[in-house]
């Protein structure tokens, strides 16, 4: 005769099985015919009683519970304090998480240079006909077509940096990207042949102003977010950071769709190098392959309202240079980016 398993007997003794449970019924039936198991059951119950008695020696002197209302009051106070902090903390967390995740993709380990694109640093202006570059993050998709009056519906917003860059692009070249700013000949060509700019539609100007505001708001928010690292930290992480070699890096901002390198000029002014990610580059390539043409620069009157910027293309990445400087100064700096 097989006896009841010790674990099942203990569970049975402790009332773990419902009365009509098959295991309980089986054990009950067995106990009715097995004196040995009945003895074991009694020993089991005695052991349980003794163990409970021993454990009862280990108890604090007082088991008095504080009023429940005091607990509830603490919880209510904590909940009242949370709502204000959550949105800002949440926004900062999202920015940080996206930035870290993006860099975790190894996006900054050196994108292979795209041979299909001439290195604009040395190419003469006439050779690099590229559509405008979409500036990431601050805007909803920066429209590469929005600065080209003759192009398809300008339904999207264009980044102010792109719009500003168009100021220096010739109409004949239809160059949206000033990726060749490093080329002196290119700059001369661009400057020598100012195009007849077309006035942008009013809606586009408004969108661009909104984009500027969003960019500024994003920068302001990013400044409060935990998304900035030092140059030393970037080096430690193995990040490839485009920079103007002779200028010190103040800090590097890691954002969802781009990197912003802040470098300090000798006079204390700061230039921002906004470096686009692979997705933006891919988007750029697609549009270029589809033959999208750059728009003509805006009218002089409209140019004054634009944020001055210059664009460079470095190792497969698009770098937009902005700062409180004249455009030609920005172009000169952009040409030095490595």
């Amino acid at each position: 005769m097989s006896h009841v398993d010790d674990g099942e007997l203990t569970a049975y003794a402790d009332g773990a099985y419902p009365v009509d449970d098959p295991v309980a019924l089986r054990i009950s039936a067995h106990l009715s015919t097995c004196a040995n198991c009945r003895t074991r059951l009694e020993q089991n119950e005695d052991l349980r009683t003794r163990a409970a008695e021993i454990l009862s020696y280990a108890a604090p002197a007082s088991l008095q519970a504080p009023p429940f209302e005091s607990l509830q009051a603490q919880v209510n106070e904590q909940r009242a304090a949370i709502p204000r902090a959550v949105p800002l903390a949440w926004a900062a967390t999202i920015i940080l998480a996206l930035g870290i995740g993006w860099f975790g993709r190894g996006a900054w380990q050196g994108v292979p240079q795209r041979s299909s694109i001439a290195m604009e640093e040395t190419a003469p202006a006439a050779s690099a006909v590229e559509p405008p570059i979409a500036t990431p993050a601050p805007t909803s998709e920066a429209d590469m077509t929005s600065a080209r009056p003759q192009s398809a519906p300008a339904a999207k917003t264009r980044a102010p940096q792109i719009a500003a860059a168009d100021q220096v692009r010739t109409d004949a070249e239809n160059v949206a990207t000033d990726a060749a700013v490093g080329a002196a000949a290119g700059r001369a060509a661009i400057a020598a042949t100012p195009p007849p700019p077309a006035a942008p539609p009013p809606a586009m100007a408004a969108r661009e102003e909104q984009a500027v505001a969003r960019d500024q708001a994003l920068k302001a928010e990013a400044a409060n977010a935990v998304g900035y690292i030092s140059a030393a930290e970037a080096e430690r992480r193995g990040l490839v950071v485009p920079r103007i070699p002779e200028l010190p890096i103040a800090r590097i901002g890691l954002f969802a769709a781009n990197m912003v390198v802040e470098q300090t000029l000798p006079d204390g002014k700061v230039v921002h190098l906004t470096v686009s990610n692979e997705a933006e580059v891919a988007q750029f390539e697609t549009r270029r392959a589809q033959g999208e043409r750059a728009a003509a620069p805006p009218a002089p009157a409209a140019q004054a309202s634009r944020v001055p910027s210059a664009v460079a293309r470095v190792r497969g990445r698009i770098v937009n240079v902005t700062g409180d400087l004249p455009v030609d100064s920005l172009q000169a700096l952009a040409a030095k980016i490595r």
Partner: protein
Amino acid sequence: MSTDWNSVYRATYEDLVRFLYRKVWDAERAHDLAQETFLRCLRDRAANAQPMGNARAFVFTVANNLARDEARSVIRRKKHLTLLKSEAETATPPVIAEETIEQERKQAAVEAALAQLSDRDREILLLWDAGLTYQDIAAQTGLSIGAIGTTLSRARRRLVEAFETTEGTQNVARG
């Protein structure tokens, strides 16, 4: 129907404090942890949606996690045992009643006996003594009913043997 935490609190608090006390061996800390347990339960929105039947198990799950972190403070534990030992070795303080000393001695013996159990055996034994059902324990530990029974049988046996061995040694020492 949301949980009536006031009722759960009143029905569970004493068992919870005993449970936590046997984890951290500090009365004040046990009360603090019990309070913290209920604070977490009240803050937990999901807990508030649980029916009453699961509230007790939820409370002890939270408490168990808190106690686990607390009990990892080995320094505190060792300090406590050292303190008890030094108190036992010194002359009886005139202001402490003999029954208090006896209580503390037994308590130290229980602590020492529990320390001889494996972590799993001790945890399940304390959960059972705190009033959790086999089903609650199974939900926390993932063990079957039969396995819980086996564990409890073993834990109880070792607790009793260890305690009575310590008591027997001390009785002999006292003469």
